[in-house]
């Protein structure tokens, strides 16, 4: 809830701040003369300053809630109160006499060495035992953790002698009670022990969300040292290879199939039920069957992606054929073209825009499907990376994998759009 409020706050502040400082974006060209722009979608252009601030905001929120070193520490959300804390507890013995002792605990965060191995826990702080039958205590607590402290074990009179803790920092406490202090909460268990729960702050524990720089460090590490016996390029390359091979096979079969369905009654009748049935089946639902049939190797994944691309491409090609303006076909016949020439010079080029739209959809679906298939079972691949990492709670690798998958998916779409502009310049302009 707090991150959302901060996000909305930054959105609103940035909107008014940019307006006040630099004004709205200047409309250029013909749009600059339009008086009606609200409701005219063509007059809306993305304000790139907003895009930049939007991305910076996401990174800022990420950094501030993880205590990142990338931003100055006064911008951090409050973290757990690391360091030494003390409180007093009062013990009463069977005779009704009381004695007070001090508890000193060190709240620490586990640090890692250069190889990423956890360093050993620090030693508890050294304290004087003090006087009386209750002695001073010393312990360590890991940040985000809690500690059921056995404070009486070192005392001269232990619980077996009938002593009980009756107050913390002078405030009376009995089993089931909770008391709040500056460093966190202390509650008493039903058996009379104190449970110390230090404040967790507003930051995310690295195991849930690592700081941006630790993701970057991990990226650098995997880039040079690989992950699970394969280099990063191999992991991503395998995923891409499967997508490309599956998509190309799907297109090679699907496009002719779609043409045949658009041109022949028999083909339309034969394949209509199959295509219409398979189209709404998500490729993910086929993963178990494909694994049973073809195993978890390359064959299974390529078969799955082939099936994912096949129906999309077949339907796109069929739509491309049915989208031919009949005048074009008539004109070609009147100009003396044969059936084959009409296929080659009219139907095929005319269906290219539809096929490109289909190809973009199919590539997107294939990319999503390959990651999902790798999540289930794979030796290498982007999906396998994040799945294995999540089992070992390497959240930084999981986030790194998600970012890389997103970038590659976006890159594929950009590439397809670029190819479309080059190859089908007449799209949407006839």
């Amino acid at each position, binding site marked *: 809830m707090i991150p959302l409020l901060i996000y909305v706050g930054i959105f609103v502040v940035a909107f008014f701040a940019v307006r006040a400082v630099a004004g709205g974006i200047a409309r250029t060209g013909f749009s600059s003369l339009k008086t009606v722009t609200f409701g005219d979608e063509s007059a809306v252009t993305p304000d790139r300053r907003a895009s930049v601030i939007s991305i910076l905001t996401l990174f800022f929120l990420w950094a501030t809630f993880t205590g990142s070193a990338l931003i100055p520490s006064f911008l951090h959300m409050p973290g757990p109160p690391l360091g030494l804390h003390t409180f007093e507890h009062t013990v009463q013995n069977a005779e009704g006499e009381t004695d007070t002792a001090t508890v000193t605990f060190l709240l620490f965060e586990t640090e890692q060495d250069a190889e990423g191995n956890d360093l050993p826990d620090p030693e508890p702080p050294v304290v004087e035992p003090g006087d009386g039958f209750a002695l001073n205590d010393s312990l360590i607590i890991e940040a985000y953790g809690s500690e059921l402290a056995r404070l009486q074990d070192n005392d001269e009179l232990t619980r077996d002698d009938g002593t009980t803790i009756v107050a913390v920092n002078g405030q009376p406490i009995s089993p089931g009670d909770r008391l709040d202090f500056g460093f966190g909460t202390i509650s008493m268990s039903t058996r009379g022990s104190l449970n110390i729960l230090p404040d967790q702050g507003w930051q995310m524990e690295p195991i849930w969300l690592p700081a941006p720089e630790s993701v970057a460090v991990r990226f650098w590490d995997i880039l040079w040292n690989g992950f699970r016996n394969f280099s990063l390029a191999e992991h991503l390359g395998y995923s891409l290879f499967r997508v490309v091979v599956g998509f190309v096979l799907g297109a090679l079969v699907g496009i002719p199939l779609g043409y045949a369905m658009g041109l022949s009654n028999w083909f339309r009748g034969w394949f209509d039920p199959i295509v219409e049935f398979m189209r709404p089946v998500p490729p993910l639902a086929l993963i178990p069957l494909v694994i049973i049939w073809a195993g978890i190797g390359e064959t299974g994944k390529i078969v799955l992606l082939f099936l994912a691309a096949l129906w999309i491409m077949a339907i796109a090609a069929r739509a491309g054929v049915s989208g031919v*303006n009949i005048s074009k076909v008539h004109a070609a016949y*009147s100009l003396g073209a044969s059936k084959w020439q009409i296929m080659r*010079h009219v139907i095929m080029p*005319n269906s290219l825009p539809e096929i490109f739209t289909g190809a973009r959809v199919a590539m997107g679906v294939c990319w999503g499907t390959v990651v999902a298939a790798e999540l289930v079972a794979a030796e290498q691949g982007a999906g396998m990376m994040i799945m294995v990492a999540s089992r070992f709670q390497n959240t930084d690798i999981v986030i790194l994998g998600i970012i890389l998958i997103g970038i590659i998916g976006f890159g594929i779409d950009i590439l397809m759009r670029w190819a479309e502009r080059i190859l089908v310049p007449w799209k949407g302009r006839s």
Partner: protein
Amino acid sequence: MTGLAIRNVSMRFDLPGGGAVQALENVSLDIKQGEILSVLGPSGCGKTTLLNIVAGFLAPTEGVIELNGHEVHGPDAERGMVFQKGALFEWMSVRENVSFGPRMKGQRAAQYAENVDHLLDVVGLQDFKEKAIYELSGGMQQRVALARCLANDPDVILMDEPLGALDALTREKMQSLVLKLWKETGKTIILITHSVEEALLLGERLIVMAPRPGRIHKEYNLPFADEGVDADLREVKKNPKFAEVREEILGMIWDMEEEIMGRTEAAQ
């Protein structure tokens, strides 16, 4: 024998829910080689159906079409067609569109290049040869369509409201162009139009068709096409005879439309 003969052509469309529409009934027409014939009529009189039958896109339920003594079955390069719009190939340049017919016949560039360039000059597109179709205006696109049809050297050119989608000024210029091309090439032309003026200006012979069932209602032989070849079309329109025939035909079509509406109302 040369020329185009339409012999006793009838066309019935069966409706899905039973019943049928008699789109054409017993239409007969002889069109001489080199004649330009315009066809007028209210909507639904079957003029486009007739053109599609002549082009070979539809088979008549009765009757035959003969061109130069042989029966017509299906579309063929001997009968070229110019559509109202949307029949150009956007994936080809202007030149590739115009050379489509010769290329489909397997001619090499050396064989057709000269003729294609000449036709592009005639229609005034010499500077737009390498342009893409979507870069041209509507009038230019129709000039490409005309040139494409002529490049294939058909015996008969069928025009289905070729100027219907153009603005008034462009349309007038294109009318002159059609007359000029007709005179230069000596092609037989059948032109369907909704515009009475256009039918009068471009038709050596003018057929007025009547609807339900589609049939030939009246036939005129007119001098205006011949006059218009060399003269300004606006001058031709000033001829008192032009206005007289125009009013007569307008009245005729008006009556037909009235009758259709009356029948529709009565049916309701």
